[in-house]
């Protein structure tokens, strides 16, 4: 028992997540400033400062608003509703149990529609965290399996993964909005203006606008896979019962129906929301690998 806990240094992971969240926000500002610079050069260098000021204000507003409302946005985007204490009694008990086992405050509990087994956690810190579970998970998982899944989400909360993933979602959203704007303004922009430098900068801006979101997404997915293993280990630490989580993963493996959720919230989920893509674009490690590691515990 002691060994299992010692293997994972949660404190290091928490510090890393907090630092990464901060770092990511800094990166997004640098990217935005660089984008603003390229855009202003492509159109008219005389407007550089005005464009920059507007871009900074907009991005600040966007980041603040989405960061502090990210849980509500995520819940609304998947159509989640607050769980009922009587109707979803088993879910409440599972969350209460995991909250006791992890020593974390009781998160808010939500249920989202959908026949697939899945769940996610969101919020910026353990004090205002949310756990959301699909109706399918409630119908198909038994008590131990549900606790395994909730324990996994609780572990994301304990590790501050939720803050990091929230920040990532906000940043991915921001960059995709900006690149969309750039691409469209290029399309409809002043085509009658000539000049070699303009064309070069235009090309740079287009490449930038196309590449930025892809790069960010790949980084996000790569990191997300590692933290899923951590969260699985954390779940076992809370439940002390690997067969529960293994059972849940096996049931998920048997499902083929993909879920329809917005891109930005995909990495938040317990297991992959779609099944067709593989390799780099996957937000989660293969289920077989997760099961194998859990069985070795």
């Amino acid at each position: 028992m002691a060994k299992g806990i010692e293997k994972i240094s949660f404190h290091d992971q928490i510090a890393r997540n907090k630092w990464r969240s901060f770092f990511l926000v800094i990166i997004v500002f640098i990217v935005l400033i660089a984008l603003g610079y390229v855009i202003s050069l492509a159109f008219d260098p005389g407007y550089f400062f005005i464009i920059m000021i507007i871009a900074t204000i907009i991005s600040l507003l966007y980041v603040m608003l989405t960061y502090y409302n990210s849980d509500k946005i995520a819940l609304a985007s998947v159509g989640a509703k607050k769980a009922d204490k009587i109707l979803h009694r088993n879910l409440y008990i599972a969350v209460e149990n995991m909250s006791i086992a992890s020593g974390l405050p009781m998160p808010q509990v939500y249920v989202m529609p959908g026949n697939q087994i899945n769940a996610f956690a969101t919020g910026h810190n353990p004090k205002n965290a949310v756990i959301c579970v699909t109706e399918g998970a409630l119908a198909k998982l038994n008590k131990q399996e549900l606790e395994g899944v909730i324990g996994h989400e609780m572990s994301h909360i304990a590790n501050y993964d939720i803050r990091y993933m929230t920040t990532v979602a906000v940043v991915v959203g921001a960059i995709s909005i900006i690149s969309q704007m750039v691409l469209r303004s290029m399309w409809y922009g002043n085509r009658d203006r000539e000049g070699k430098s303009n064309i070069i900068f235009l090309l740079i801006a287009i490449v930038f606008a196309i590449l930025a979101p892809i790069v960010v997404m790949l980084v996000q997915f790569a990191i997300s896979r590692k933290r899923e293993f951590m969260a699985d280990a954390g779940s076992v630490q809370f439940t002390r019962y690997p067969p529960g989580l293994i059972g849940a993963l096996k049931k998920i493996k048997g499902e083929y129906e993909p879920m329809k959720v917005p891109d930005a919230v995909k990495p938040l989920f317990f297991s992959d929301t779609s099944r067709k893509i593989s390799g780099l674009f996957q937000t989660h490690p293969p289920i077989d690998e997760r099961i194998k590691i859990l069985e070795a515990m």
Partner: protein
Amino acid sequence: MISLILIIIGAVILLLLITAFGYFNRFTILQNRISNAFSQIDVQLKKRADLVPNLVESVRGYMRHEREIIEKISEARKGLVSANSSGDIVKKIKAGDALQNAMSRLFAISENYPDLKANQNFLQLQQELAAIEDKIAYARQFYNDSVLSYNNTCTTIPGAWFASLFGKKAGKYLEIPEAEREPVKVKF
């Protein structure tokens, strides 16, 4: 040259002080976590003690011939209530276990009373008590986890040096009896 040496000495002392403060706070945080873990157990034990009279009430009419076991439960409950008012954690846990054992016997016997098993009130109480039992098990586990991380901090170097400096001693784990490793499953 002398000023350089002074600066180095000063820096070393400052570093030591910062580390000492850091460890002091760490010990405090971990000890607070242990007492928080304990109060979690406490809350659940109190809930259990509060529910038992209702259970006994709902059972009494059906189990006229099982006076012995009902008396045992009442006694165990009294023990838990008096242990709850004392501050001794080991005592509380033991009293809680005794009550749990008495109740699992009652639930086993209730299998022979179909009327009782059909009683909604009884079923609800049984479910609630089973949920509380799970929570007590998880709360104990978290207590031991908290003691473990506290003990790790104050028995490994350099934490051990600061632990002796501040007079901190390793905490005790809650022993979980072999038979209770697996939560007692209440059969319906």
